[in-house]
């Protein structure tokens, strides 16, 4: 690469001074399970460490819920169900509004905690996750007393106890996506955060206490896969909502078969991001950055397959390399950090295995970001591959890391055929300044969310969820309510 290098901050010339976020968060030495409105020690007597993936320091010890704990949580939710469902809907709404307000009031603390426990840059947890978390509760609060208008001709009723299992990439946001619609529709919940990112959900439980949410309406229990399986299999759980891998999603679909439980799944993706020659290239480059390097690529809808029209491929690749070189990697609590820590050592190994596989299969790795990485913690430099064939593992499987596969195409038909050639169908991006083309491509992409001339935008009012093996059901917007009511 020539020419552009001399302007690059970070590698030559300018250095940024550290700009750490200094808000202190009171993290307890250990956390119990939040059942029936209070924190209690696990009957399992087991606990596990939760660490800061940027420093490998232990932050706290978290309870591992065993079968008896799961049962207690489900019992509490079941007992609270009739009262919560009978509550005047406008009063139910007010509880959710209160939650939204307390989240806003405690937002910096929660953002810092999210960054410490999960590794994402503070500018993302502060400016994206937390505002969306509050918005989800605020948005759904308003639905509680208007549900009949959401389902013309039907009388929606609550489903019952909802078992909700969420991933580690957007811990508090996923908790909000699950809890807010369930509560608005009059259900009670047992929520299990991912084992590496339990802390913000437990602080959310404190908010539930503060706003005097009736005991048992939300129960938050921590643990790993076995705890999740016990929730899913509990006979009093009437609805299962899961966000995570397609493999686990298929397993859950089999395990609820014949039980009559309602199921929604928000699973993996290998989303295409298509750049046409007539796109605004500089904006598209920013879109690529947002699509694959946002949250270290730990995003189910990450645009991990980039399709560039052949005539602009060299320009896009040059500009992308330049932009990638300027990304600041490191301390997630630094306000200038663009790429934080990988969530866990397990995930780092998975990503590294894929990067090796890409090279082994003959793709060309571009890893031009030369910033020094911290000594401790789990780090992966953002990178992309060129020379990728559709059959390569890195073009087919979800990596869940900051690794982009760049491919080229000639015609819109080819772009569409290749974009849709995957069992996944979660999201897609398309970049062109031709209006008619953008609508045609958006219509024909097999994806639940299509970002046109933008990428990775989220909103509480905007339904999210996949086609094909990316799952079924929607979260957010009017459509998201459907999973939490029966007629």
């Amino acid at each position: 690469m020539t020419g552009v290098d001399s302007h690059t901050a970070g590698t030559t010339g300018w250095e940024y001074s550290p700009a750490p976020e200094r808000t202190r968060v009171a993290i307890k030495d250990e956390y119990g399970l939040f059942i029936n409105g209070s924190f209690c020690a696990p009957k399992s007597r087991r606990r596990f460490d939760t660490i800061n993936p940027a420093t490998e320091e232990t932050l706290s010890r978290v309870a591992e819920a065993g079968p008896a704990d799961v049962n207690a949580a489900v019992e509490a939710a079941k007992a609270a169900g009739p009262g919560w469902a009978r509550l005047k809907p406008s009063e139910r709404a007010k509880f959710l509004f209160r939650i939204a307000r307390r989240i806003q009031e405690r937002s910096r603390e929660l953002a810092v905690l999210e960054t410490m426990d999960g590794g994402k840059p503070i500018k993302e947890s502060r400016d994206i996750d937390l505002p969306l978390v509050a918005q989800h509760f605020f948005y759904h609060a308003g639905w509680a007393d208007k549900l009949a208008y959401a389902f013309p001709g039907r009388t929606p009723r609550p489903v019952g106890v909802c078992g909700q299992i969420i991933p580690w990439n957007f811990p508090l946001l996923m908790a909000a996506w699950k809890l807010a619609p369930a509560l608005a529709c009059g259900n009670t919940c047992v929520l299990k955060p991912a084992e590496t990112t339990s802390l913000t959900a437990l602080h959310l439980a404190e908010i539930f206490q503060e706003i005097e949410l009736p005991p048992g309406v939300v129960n938050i229990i921590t643990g790993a896969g076995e705890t999740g399986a016990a929730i899913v299999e509990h006979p009093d759980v009437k609805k299962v909502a899961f966000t995570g891998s397609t493999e686990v999603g298929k397993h859950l679909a089999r395990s609820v078969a014949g039980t009559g439980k309602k199921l929604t799944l928000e699973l993996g993706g290998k989303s295409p991001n298509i750049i046409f020659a007539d796109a605004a290239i500089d904006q598209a480059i920013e879109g690529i950055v947002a699509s694959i390097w946002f949250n270290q690529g730990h995003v189910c809808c990450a645009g991990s397959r980039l399709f560039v029209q052949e005539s602009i491929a060299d320009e896009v690749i040059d500009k992308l390399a330049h932009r990638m070189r300027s990304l600041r990697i490191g301390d997630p609590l630094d306000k200038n950090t663009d790429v934080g820590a990988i969530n866990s050592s397990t995930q780092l190994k998975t990503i590294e295995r894929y990067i090796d596989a890409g090279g082994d299969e003959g793709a060309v790795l571009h890893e031009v970001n030369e910033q020094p990485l911290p000594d401790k913690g789990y780090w992966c430099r953002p990178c992309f591959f060129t020379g990728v064939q559709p059959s390569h593992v890195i073009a087919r499987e979800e990596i869940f890391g900051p690794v982009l596969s760049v491919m080229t195409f000639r015609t819109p038909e080819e772009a569409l055929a290749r974009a849709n050639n995957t069992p996944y169908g979660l999201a897609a991006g398309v970049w062109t300044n031709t209006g008619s083309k953008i609508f045609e491509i958006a219509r024909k992409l097999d994806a639940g969310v299509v970002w046109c001339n933008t990428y990775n935008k989220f909103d509480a009012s905007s339904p999210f969820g996949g086609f094909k093996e990316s799952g079924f059901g929607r979260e957010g917007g009017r459509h998201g309510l459907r999973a939490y009511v029966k007629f």
Partner: protein
Amino acid sequence: MPERLDIIKTCKLFIGGSFPRTESGRSAPVHDGRGRVIAHVCIASRKDLREAVESARRVSDSWADASAYLRGQILYRMAEMLESRREEFASAISTTTPLTPAKARREVDASVDRLVRFAGWTDKFQQVLGCQNPVAGPYYNFSVPQPSGITGILSPDAPSLLGLVTMISAPLCTGCPVVAVASDSTPLPAVLLGEVCATSDIPGGVVNILTGNRAELIEPMAEHREVQVIAAANLKPAQRELIQTAAADGLKRIHLLEHSDSSWLDDDAAASPWEIDPYLDTKTIWHPSAT
């Protein structure tokens, strides 16, 4: 010896717009109320099912891309063709089921009306089920329903005609092609419905109708990678579990209908937008708004 020997109809499958025999070379007799054999129907095999799905796949894009107005006219055309054969259908039902001729006529009339009802839905459900979303930023954001894809249908034993008509017209209305397995016990109306489809401008392959053993076809249908949606009516619990287990690996959408005799007849219960929704996936599209 009778004065004139009856011509007993050979009932065939309806696949890809034509009427093949089953490749398995098997058939089963259809009896009237007095136990007399009045016809034979094919016992479709797994291979026939795969052939039907393949036919559906070939027209999957073109049916989804057909204008909603056109799909409405084609469904209405089906109603016209069924209307003109009401007596024949009523007789097929009353001859092969315990229903009285009057009740059989009522079922046929309801089936014609059901097709008309869905013909009217083809260009309206998008407005009822889709919406614009008021996102907090300078974006146009809208959610549009799109057809989920090839739909496998296990229709009920009763009402044999109205159940099948209801279950194929909902996905057809959205733009999904269908592969339907008729009732085991009362297949004749389904066979006749294939003939209605063949004469109603439905492109070949958009509707495929198989007769035979439902139990034999449940699993291959639920496992088939090209089938995106499974709709099944009035199943036994064991069959429900079988379908949900077999469909898990493909993460298919599953719609289980539970209707009583009266709710099948009720448009609000059986032909509302909430009966169209299971054949749709919602796509949400974002675009910046700026100068």
